């Protein structure tokens, strides 16, 4: 892996709730290499979005963030509001599932992109407008000059997501965090947006963290995958290894539950994710795991190397043996 541009160490996010502290992210480590496209996969409530909202400094005041997030040598945990304003949109950008909520309905698209440019760069209004049109072209919006003069409601869902991507890459950030960017889109439009994201990654060398629940999307575009469960990474692997030889029972369970051509019967994962207000001792997955043994109750398993992958299952190596 190339030198890591984003380095997350022991990231922990705790929310104060009326029912007591809820630890949504429990000691997460992640390295993202420059220009790499990595996936963070998990189901609802696994902490995948919260981890990166924490990195962006976008969590509400009820959240306490601990640990370290180094972006190109800058520590983001504990940074002042002013520092974060200078980082967000310049070094680190984030796009979300719903592009409409990221756009101002009463301003023209071109003006919103130029505002983004001028917030971080010394640039004339005129130059910024021209650059905005170029950016719209980069993300594949036809007639970018005319479209720049239009308002968000005049764009379709897919086109809005392109606009938001144009805004996110306006200042050539080192890292783009894409949080379920295609989940609200139709499948033919999703294919287009995934292409735009890959183009941005290749053309500008932007590292992309793709947060998704869709393993098909992961298989299509990502290099490395990090699987999250109950606020921790339970497996990380190269994309081909993950699908060929998953090392964690949760990953195996996810793959078994996916409908695929030729599959006779789906195998769901039994039970539910744990209540994060009262997480179980030891491995958080053990209550749903067919391979759990009494040792799984004792300590929270750390990620350990299993072949080329890393797995947070104490039985990973043993279970990988052909039985």
């Amino acid at each position, binding site marked *: 892996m190339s030198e890591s541009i984003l380095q997350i160490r022991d990231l922990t996010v705790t929310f104060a709730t009326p029912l007591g502290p809820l630890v949504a992210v429990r000691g997460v480590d992640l390295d993202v290499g420059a220009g790499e496209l990595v996936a963070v996969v998990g189901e609802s409530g696994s902490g995948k979005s919260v981890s990166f909202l924490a990195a962006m400094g976008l969590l509400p005041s009820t959240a306490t963030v601990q640990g370290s997030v180094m972006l190109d040598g800058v520590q983001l945990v504990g940074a002042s509001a002013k520092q974060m304003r200078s980082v967000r949109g310049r070094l680190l950008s984030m796009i979300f599932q719903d592009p409409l909520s990221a756009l101002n309905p009463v301003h023209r698209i071109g003006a919103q992109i130029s505002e983004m440019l001028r917030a971080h760069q010394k640039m004339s209004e005129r130059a910024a407008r021209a650059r905005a049109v170029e950016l719209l072209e980069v993300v594949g919006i036809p007639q970018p000059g005319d479209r720049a003069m239009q308002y968000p409601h005049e764009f379709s869902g897919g086109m809005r997501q392109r606009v938001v991507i144009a805004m996110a890459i306006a200042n050539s950030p080192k890292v783009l965090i894409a949080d379920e960017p295609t989940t609200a889109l139709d499948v033919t439009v999703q294919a287009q947006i995934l292409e735009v994201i890959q183009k941005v990654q290749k053309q500008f060398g932007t590292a992309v963290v793709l947060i998704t629940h869709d393993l098909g999307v992961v298989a299509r575009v990502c290099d490395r995958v990090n699987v999250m469960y109950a606020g921790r990474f339970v497996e990380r692997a190269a994309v081909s290894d993950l699908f060929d030889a998953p090392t964690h029972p949760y990953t195996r369970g996810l793959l078994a539950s996916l409908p695929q051509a030729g599959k006779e019967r*789906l195998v769901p994962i039994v039970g539910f994710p744990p209540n994060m207000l009262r997480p179980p001792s030891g491995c958080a997955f053990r209550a749903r795991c067919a391979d759990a043994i009494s040792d799984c109750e004792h300590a929270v398993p750390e990620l350990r190397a299993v072949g080329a992958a890393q797995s947070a299952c104490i039985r990973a190596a043993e279970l990988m043996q052909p039985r």
Partner: protein
Amino acid sequence: MTQPEITTPVVTPAAGGALLSVRGLVKQFQMKAVRGMTGRKRVVQAVSDVSFDVAPGETLGLVGESGSGKTTVGRCVLRLIEPTAGQVMFEGVDLAKLSFEELRVVRRRMQIVFQDPYASLDPKMTVGASIAEPLVVQGVGGDHNEKVVSLLELVGLSADHARRFPHEFSGGQRQRIGVARALALDPALIVLDEPVSALDVSIQAGVVNLFNDLQARLGMSYIFIAHDLSVVRHTADRVAVMYLGKIMEIGDAETVYEHPTHPYTKALLSAVPLPNPRVERSRSRIMLEGDVPSPVNPPSGCRFRTRCWKATDLCAMQEPVLEVRSHGQLSACHHPEE
């Protein structure tokens, strides 16, 4: 409003007589005039001339992107909304000809399960009361409690769940409660409208299995409406691919998935990301340009032509009709893949 023109429908004859038979179904929605704006009223063509059959015990998958009209078809079938034109025959009865009272009796035999299990249960009613509600509404006698318990067990929940409230359940469990309620009146047909879209994959699998098991046991038919083509492939016997209110291709599910003949079906299947990196990285992908056009003003001729790489002048002038292809399915295209 002018009556829309209806072309002669071609439909796959369902083996052994159809449970449901839809002919020339049309649904238009009048858009509200915007205050201060003049001009003609706009009409959304949600469903235009759709025909299909559903055989007893069969699952018909309805797939398509947003705006394809798949949900509107489902609701017209149940007459939850009034079709603009066309015929819906259910167990030999033309639903459009029924009075409200007569329709209520027929409705026992057809039920719906919605996408959002959170919104489709009354938060102030116990789960048992929710499941028993159809029995009360339809004036079914006998011991409702006993029936509720057997329904809960049928969908993989337990008897003591009846006393609890919806908020005490997870999404997957709530969807099971919705299914139990739909089963209360022993329906012959259930419309499943995106029934697993709101669920995480690990939970979704259990609900999909439940649908298959219930059908094997009770023999009802499903109309399975979903945008997720992999889920539909797993559940449907036959599949209809819709685009802008029209059926583009319909036939045996395996045939349509393995040998798509309509360019839209091909493009749709190629856009679905498969959870297999080797396949994903080696297969050629058809990238459709642009978005689905507005159903207020659909393209002339073939509705897909504006995004189709095979489109010719003919496609703009003449609307293709459904025709039988070599693998047995029907598709509406002037330039089909064979």
